[in-house]
């Protein structure tokens, strides 16, 4: 038997993994790869995460599951030089957090992956998709690189009536501003009666930057939003996007009170005078609202107040990811859509709508092409207000 260690290495190194992602950057050299070792060494490689990682379910390679990612990160902190080779593993995590919820050792892989992405960014190792995201946010204040006004969905008269000071700010987010302005309009319509205002020059919450490793750039963007929040004098920020919610709640200063739209609606159900709809709906838990922040009951309370809820096969902490987060939709659209298709398999029979409370989830689940219409919770509430 031959020892393979020194044989054919040259030609092996020339073979590149098939990867549709456009990649930029170069090898990092000898720069230390700074990720908290204790967080990484918590992983005992038992493989529990392998059974739940939604990306692995679609891709099938070990590098595409959490254990593989933790191993790769371990190799980097132990001295392996980071290179573009690691991107298809580390950039394909949706940070859905189901691995963390199942990990017997209590590891938090999404945090570790985000920290590793930050180190890769420092080394200049990024995908083209990441760079595009960053450029859009830094140049135009939104993740799509849109140039039109963020408040284009408001009429001139509505704009002129926006209070300069308020206890409540509705943080609209990039998605509702540019992709689902009808959600923004409906949300604003519901919240207006409580005296909410908008930030004069809202910027992206910085979630796309944080999730994909651009921590330093994210700090600057967050500061711009913070300045405005302080100026408005708001004590509470309301948002209808799960990505914005987790970022505002967990990455912005702690003194900020951040509340998701479903939580706000659940708190104010009586004041909303909602009528009961003759509808059966199911609810998809967005990862960054549910698993990351444990907001499970509020959306269900709202839904059950106005319709009949029939749960999906996997719910709450076991809910499967739609594939829309962590930069995966933009970086690996095919994988992202497969995840959404898998999630649609969990939809029960006999429902009129799939309701969720995150525009990223709405888009991905819609694009997966199921028979049942996917709507945001604000649309259901709007129906009950008609």
């Amino acid at each position, binding site marked *: *038997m031959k020892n393979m260690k020194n044989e054919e290495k040259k030609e092996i*190194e020339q073979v*590149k*993994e098939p990867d549709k992602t456009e990649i930029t950057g170069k090898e990092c050299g000898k720069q230390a790869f700074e990720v908290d070792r204790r967080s990484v060494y918590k992983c005992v*490689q038992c493989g529990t995460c392998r059974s739940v990682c939604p990306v692995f379910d679609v891709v099938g390679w070990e590098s595409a599951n959490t254990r*593989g990612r933790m191993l790769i990160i371990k190799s980097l902190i132990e001295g392996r030089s980071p290179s573009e080779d*690691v991107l298809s*593993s580390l950039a394909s995590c949706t940070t859905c957090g189901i691995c963390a919820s199942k990990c017997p050792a209590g590891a938090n892989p999404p945090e570790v992956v985000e920290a590793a992405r930050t180190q890769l960014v420092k080394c200049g190792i990024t995908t083209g998709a990441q760079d595009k995201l960053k450029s859009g946010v830094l140049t135009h204040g939104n993740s799509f690189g849109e140039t039109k006004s963020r408040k284009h969905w408001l009429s001139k008269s509505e704009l002129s009536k926006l209070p300069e000071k308020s206890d409540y700010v509705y943080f609209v987010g990039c998605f509702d501003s540019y992709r689902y302005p009808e959600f923004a309009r409906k949300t604003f319509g519901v919240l207006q009666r409580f005296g909410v205002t908008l930030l004069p020059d809202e910027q992206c919450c910085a979630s796309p930057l944080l999730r994909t490793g651009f921590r330093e750039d994210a700090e600057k963007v967050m500061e711009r939003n913070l300045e405005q929040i302080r100026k408005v004098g708001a004590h509470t920020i309301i948002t209808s996007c799960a990505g914005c919610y987790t970022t505002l709640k967990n990455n912005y200063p702690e003194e900020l009170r951040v509340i998701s739209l479903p939580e706000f609606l659940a708190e104010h159900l009586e004041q909303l005078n909602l009528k009961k709809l003759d509808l059966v709906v199911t609810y998809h838990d967005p990862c960054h609202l549910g698993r990351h922040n444990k907001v499970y009951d509020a959306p269900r309370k709202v839904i059950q107040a106005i319709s009949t809820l029939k749960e999906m096969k996997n719910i709450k902490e076991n809910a499967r990811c739609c594939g829309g987060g962590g930069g995966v939709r933009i970086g690996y659209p095919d994988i992202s859509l497969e995840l959404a298709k898998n999630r649609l398999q969990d939809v029960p029979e006999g429902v009129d709508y799939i309701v969720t409370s995150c525009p990223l989830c709405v888009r991905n689940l819609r694009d997966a092409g199921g028979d049942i219409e996917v709507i945001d919770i604000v649309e259901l509430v709007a129906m009950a207000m008609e």
Partner: protein
Amino acid sequence: MDITAELKKIVGGRLSVSPSELYCYSSDASQVKGMPDYVVRPKSTDEVSRIVRLAYENEIPVTARGAGTGLAGGAVPVGGGIVLDMSGMNRILEIDIDNIQVVVEPGIIQDALNSALKPYGFFFPPNPGSSAMCTIGGMIAYNASGMRCVKYGTTRNYVRDLEVVLADGTVIHTGSKMLKSAAGYDLTQLIIGSEGTLGIVTKASLKIAPLPKTRKLVIASFENAEIAGQAVVKTFSNGVIPSACEILDRVSLQVLKRYDPNLVLPAEGDVLLFEVDGTESSAREAAEQIMKVCAPLTLSIRLAESEHEMADIWAARKLVGAAVSRLDPTKTRIYVGEDVGVPIKQIPELLKRAQEISEKFNLPAMKYGHIGDGNLHLALFIDVLNKDDWDRLNRAADLIHRTAIELGGTVSSEHGVGAARAEYMEAQWGPALEVMRAIKKVLDPKGILNPGKLGL
């Protein structure tokens, strides 16, 4: 020969030589490491056969891998070469209830198989703690078992027939759907537990068992693990065969409580979990008998209140081994010396010695395991950033292995030998190891199948 090109011809894009990918296949859950040169994910017996033939002709090592949950480095390619990731061959080919068996590909996950069998009222009994992720192929290769082994036996007791790719690529069947056969050597039993050193399993016919009508769980606590061991011996000698009989020492209990604070577990002592199954009346009778027999030795004893409580306790028990960091975030459980077994009568002695070893090397430890079949999982945990901890850990593991052999036991009850325990095979088997080596030589003359394992 351009091996990469040849492999591509066989599996197309299901080949990787990316350094990061290879790294992910360079370890399992043990401390054994070894970089492969190629990873392939075959989809059929024909592909496996062609890959192995290619490897045979070019004398390249081939290591089969399921989910990589092994604890002995069995799936780690210590000699480099090709890793066959079999987890993509995961179909259930036939559920044959009339013959009480099922035909599967090796990559099927244990829990997935049982989910598919449940509507028929049947199950595949061997259930390792890793049942949510381990593959049937891996279970066959390492003769895995788990918590219900005490009544239902190990994987070995459930395999009727295997399709195996031999070292030169030849495909054979080792058995049939028959319940019994008196014709020739039992090659099925030879392949089971051979850790991929004699052939690659590509299909398996498995016997299945009817699901019991009910299960009951007795939770008993004892002053110390030795007394718990005596209670086990006493239970068995009174003619009760539980469907599971697990020990959790007080450290394991603390970890479990951290893992799931809602669990209602005894406040003190070392705990035994006795599960009995059968009809409502037979299970109740068995549970009552256990309670009666054990009561004089216990600090507390009770019956679990509901199926829900039982399910929660078993779910937590399954994952306790990896959960030690919940108790102390600076400590990590390292899987060495974790799978020894002794004859049931020697259990109290093994528990005593394990405690002494833990104290001697000043290593915190959890003791848990399938005490009903003599299998103790000693979980030693260390600060992985401390070199001295590693040294003491390895010395303690060595001593626990030698203790098990001295007590007439085994260095591995269900996790396998792999590379991690290869050095103890001589001491455990003596001249019988030469017979194993002779068999290996005949079936794998070029030594390409999972080299460096089993002490061969």
